């Protein structure tokens, strides 16, 4: 069954005519070509599909888009301010906090939600906030350091 979904993504309104039984991740990637949001485990375990809903990081692979109509969805495409990268993006690039980069969109959005709520987090608070975002390359240290650097700018 197809229906019209009304989604507000990165401050823009979208009307999508799509099957109701697609996850938010699938709608973003397959119907809206917003492929910055990555497809990992589809089981809620890896965090690479993270998006923000009303500022809170959640997993788009487990969210039904019908249930989030009318709410503010932020994807990685909405993180930079025009051509100006977000301070977190700058810090991740400067410190080499991305290697293959597959986890990076999720890492950035979860970190953004953390800094929006808690501008000067401790290392422990950063670790707790990022507990659901797995990275198989960096060993996490560079990621924590990048969040710390961004929190100082």
């Amino acid at each position, binding site marked *: *069954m197809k229906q019209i979904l009304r989604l507000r993504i990165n401050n823009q309104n979208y009307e999508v005519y799509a*099957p*109701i*039984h*697609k*996850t938010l991740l699938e709608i973003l990637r397959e119907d809206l070509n917003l492929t910055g949001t990555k497809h990992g485990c*589809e*089981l*809620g375990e890896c*965090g690479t599909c*993270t998006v923000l*809903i009303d500022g*809170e*990081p*959640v*997993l788009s692979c*487990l*969210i*039904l888009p*019908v*249930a989030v109509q009318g709410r503010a969805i932020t994807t990685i495409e909405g993180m930079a301010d025009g051509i100006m990268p977000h301070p977190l993006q700058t810090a991740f690039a400067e410190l080499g906090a991305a290697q293959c980069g597959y986890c990076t969109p999720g890492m950035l959005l*979860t970190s953004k939600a953390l800094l929006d709520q808690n501008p000067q987090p401790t290392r422990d608070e950063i670790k*707790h*906030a990022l*507990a*659901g*975002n797995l990275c198989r390359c960096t060993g996490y240290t560079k990621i924590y350091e990048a969040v710390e650097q961004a929190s100082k700018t």
Partner: protein
Amino acid sequence: MKSFELHDAGTVQEAVALLNKFGPSAKIVAGGSDLVTGVMKDWVHGKGMPIPEKLIDVTAIPEMIGITIAANGGATIGAATTLTSITESKDLDQKWAVLTQSAASVASPLIRNFGTLGGNINQRPRCWFLRGEHFDCYKKGGDFCFAVTGDNRYHAIIGGELCYIVHPSDVATSLLALNASANIAGPSGTRAVAFDSYFTGPREDVLRENVLKHDELMVNVTIPALAPNTKTAWSKLKDRQVYDFALVSVAVVVTQENGAWRDGRIVLGGVAPVPYRAKVIEQALVGKNIKDTIKAAASTLKTVARPMSLNAYKVDLAINLIERTVLNAL
């Protein structure tokens, strides 16, 4: 995913009416972190676990969201309240830290931000045969349990029969320790069921884990005020440091008199098809000095444990974790 219809319920009555109208083909959905991962993605189903055709969304029902502290000192938490709201509640943390600690140990923040209390308590088990596409086991309406001869390292060490799941909910473990109850709405009104009798094992009905009927839903949970000087503690052991389901978890609620166990509960998660109240251990402690007795008392778990081929290690884990958690509570 298979196609489905989604219905937004605005009130509890509306949700019950929809459940009643659609019959067993309808299911409640809250955050969806369990339902969408398993059943809706059509990996986990069988004739005893059909894929729902209608989903009834309860996350916009105002009376099912939020935390209220009552005049009598108890609390009521709406079933559609997110786990993050529970972990962040100072009121709950001050009075019932065992609950907020258990909620904080669930999954990752990314799931707690949309996963709800009702979804946590009513989530389906994590047995990897159940979650595997190709195993048509008893719980899916099939005629075999693959865990008996298969890899059962995470399965039940107590109370398994026919099916050997462990109840996956961390929050249920602490709610049972707190003697909380569930308020359930159905076509004939509402009923309160203490968590003591909310969860059901495979012996009663292998196709479900609790007393909820298909046309009922959980509206909220009430927690009674604790007696003065009650102490609580929570521990959860898991295979990975970051987050995982419990190998064993322990919730302790205790009152003492001069160092002796007066009253309380020791509840284990990850060991049985239901959150398991370790009455043998409580009885071994009553009236005795806790510090002197706990080691011997905890080891009485051996009298009720019946491990499977690969999970006897969980008996030792549980005994040690019980000892540690009870001592932490004091």
